[in-house]
């Protein structure tokens, strides 16, 4: 079932997403970049605040939940993906965007990430990746560099760093992108493509961002010096082999852009046999149902 996009009208403006609450993130936090780019992407897709659902996990990024308008949900740590998936399956007409940090998404909620990708839920997932637990004051996440001293791990962590892109590609994703909060125009385009991919399935967007307070390794300057636009350099997102290669190898340069995309795999919803040819949503179907035909075999 397609998302209803009113591409003909004049659409909303950035002002429509404006909210009175002031931002509380640290100066130079990458969250400002995601906050700006997501509003820009929604506006450019001509989606008004009432037409979208933005779902937030718990962490610094989750504090965005009251810094913009739109229908929003700010739930439990690690659990944003199944919440967002449930919301979307109930009403396929509403674009649903889930936001989560690397702390929750690769530890407490990692099981959900595995199954969300393999389920190919028709939702967009934006990973705020600053490689640490910021809100709880800078502990190591599964994506923190192993030797980096952090709060609660002054010697660095004993575990090795999880190779997030190897992990994601192993789950046979249908959309993988990587952005950087220093490049808002590119991030906007990535978000737009990732939202439109909901027509086909699960879009995974890894957003590299600085944590000026706690991540002293991958700083804004570090990322700025290394990120490059792979699509501008001719990368073809349909090339799985190449996409995987440039996604996992961040040793010298870090590829950004739409790294991998395929639209020929049905989403979870489109694979549901009972929903084939159904044009209504579960939300529209609420009402008492006569089930007497279902108990015929029980007499």
């Amino acid at each position: 079932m397609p998302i209803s996009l009113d591409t003909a009208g004049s659409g909303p403006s950035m002002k429509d997403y404006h909210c009175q609450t002031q931002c509380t993130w640290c100066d130079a936090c990458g969250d400002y970049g995601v906050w700006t780019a997501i509003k820009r992407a929604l506006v450019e897709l001509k989606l008004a605040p009432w037409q979208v659902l933005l779902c937030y996990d718990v962490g610094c990024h989750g504090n965005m939940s009251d810094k913009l308008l739109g229908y929003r949900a700010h739930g439990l740590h690690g659990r944003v993906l199944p919440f967002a998936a449930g919301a979307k399956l109930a009403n396929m007409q509403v674009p649903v965007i889930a936001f989560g940090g690397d702390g929750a998404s690769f530890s407490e909620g990692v099981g959900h990430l595995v199954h969300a990708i393999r389920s190919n839920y028709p939702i967009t997932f934006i990973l705020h990746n600053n490689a640490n637990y910021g809100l709880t004051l800078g502990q190591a996440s599964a994506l923190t560099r192993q030797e980096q001293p952090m709060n609660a791990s002054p010697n660095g962590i004993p575990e090795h760093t999880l190779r997030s892109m190897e992990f994601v590609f192993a789950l046979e994703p249908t959309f993988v992108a990587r952005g950087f909060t220093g490049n808002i125009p590119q991030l906007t385009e990535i978000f737009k493509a990732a939202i439109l991919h909901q027509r086909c399935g699960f879009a995974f967007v890894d957003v590299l961002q600085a944590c000026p307070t706690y991540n002293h390794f991958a700083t804004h300057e570090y990322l700025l010096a290394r990120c490059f636009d792979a699509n501008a350099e001719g990368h073809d997102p349909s090339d799985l082999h190449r996409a995987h290669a440039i996604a996992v190898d961040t040793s010298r340069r870090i590829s950004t852009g739409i790294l991998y995309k395929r639209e020929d795999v049905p989403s979870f919803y489109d694979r549901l046999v009972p929903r084939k040819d159904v044009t209504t949503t579960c939300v529209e179907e609420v009402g008492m149902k006569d089930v007497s035909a279902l108990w015929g075999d029980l007499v």
Partner: protein
Amino acid sequence: MTRISLKIVGASGQGINSIGEIVAKGLKRAGYCVFGYREYPSLIKGGHASYQLDCSNDRVRSAETKVNAVMALNHHGLEHNLADVKESGVLIHLTPEWKFSPEDQKLLRSRKSTVIAIPLEEILKRLGAKPILGNVLLAAFLWAALGQDKDELKALVGERFAKKKNLLELNMKCIEEGFSYTDPAAGRVSVTLPSSDPVWKDHLLVTGSQAMGLGAMHAGVRLYAGYPMTPSSPLLSFIADLQNQTGMVLKQAEDEITAAQIVTGAMFMGARALTATSGGGFDLMSETLSLNGILENPTVFVLAQRPGPATGLPTWTAQGDLLMAIHTAHGEFARCVLAVSDSQDAFDLMPVAFNLAEEFQISVIVLTDKQVAEALYTQTPFDQTKVKVERGKLVTDPAALKELKGTDRYDPNVKDGISLRWLPGSNAATYCAQGDEHNADGTVDETAKNAKEQMEKRMRKLESLKQALPEPELWKIENGKGRITNESPLLDCLIVGWGSSKDTVLDALADEKFGGKRIGYLHFTYLWPLKTERLQALAKKAKKIILVEQNYQGQLGVLIRQECGLEINEKILKYDGRPFFVDELIELIRAKLSFPTID
């Protein structure tokens, strides 16, 4: 009332359920009320399992400990259940060369048991039939012993094997063989049924899980998410099996947290969605329950109880999670806990649960247990006119939506604590369903004033809910029949309980041994918030009060004392995983009644 009972015993996976189901359906169609009770181990194959049918021409809704006939499909069952045969009962087994021990022989003689050996293997071999067809043959033998019509059985088996036409002929041969088999030593046997009553013919034979599934579908549930866990799994399977007819969205989730979150998201969006689990899975859902508390998001969770702690007794029954359902999850918030007692409740309470959830914007926990989930009930076709969809303060009218402000969503000034709710995708002002403490439009607000206001707003709903919920039902037993009454009679004894033990209590109290006694049974369907006014009024006029529960602590008793100070000292508690059996409960109540009363 005359009731007879049959018990088929053997190993899990041997086919005892199919024999039980065939005979149950046949008896129901012949005009009997049937109650099916299953016991089985947590194994796919092997172990010891049983399927017991208790039936009568009057209502039967419980099992007895002793039965009129035992059919043992293996040696273990023969030895293990031999003593379950009542006086002058029948013991059927499949090993003609079996030598009973001297003790067993003595017992069989003293009970005047008739022993029948059916050389099943030999007969099947002669017919060229696979062992699985033995089930039909054995069902036919029981059918003949019950004095029933062969053609009825043939029709029934024909339906069951409608899709396996190639097996039909062989099945019919098995019916002939089973029906006509006579033990050379014992001769023909019969288990005498009372006269039939055609009223039962059009009834349904349903498990509590099937009834609950139908109730959920009737309530407009369009999405189900669940993780397999006995005894909630039969509900998942039933809904899944019907999905192509119902068009429902079904998700077998990666864990119970996921199932709870999917349902939370779907309900937030405005659908009706359901999940069910058992104790351990519910533990995992508890954080999500707390989230729904602060989001004021309507949700319904089915908690199918089995004995814990931990894995406990996975395939047995209990009422041990009442206090857990009421207290689990961090923080203070309003919720509703109700419990089903049988297939009727399992159907009827699903629309009620969804209405309460939406009207009060709370989570509703529906307690069931293994006994309800897997027992087979003879059920009047469900009345679908009892409940309408109630969505409370949900705004859907386009003009009304335009008038909304984001601050209407969690307006702390609403008198009953219930603020307006509208759905994502509605053309209206937006808000945040905020898991942090928030003010009226979901903006995070940690000020003391706001925290106090919002807590008080949410907790006011508990008071509003308590006022709206019905008082417990008083059942009075007269001439062996139970009926619900609004009176407050003087009673020799008031029995208090909840959940599936209700059915056994009512069957027990219908026994003639209680003739002449004024006994009432007060049944709590709505357990939180707990209404105690009626109980207190009845308690004043009752000579004795007995609490009947299937847990160690007497959890409803704990709750009653907490809520109104009434201490129920007489308790009949059972916590061994087995349900109350009717004969057992009759004796337990009689023993309590012979105690001197304290005025």
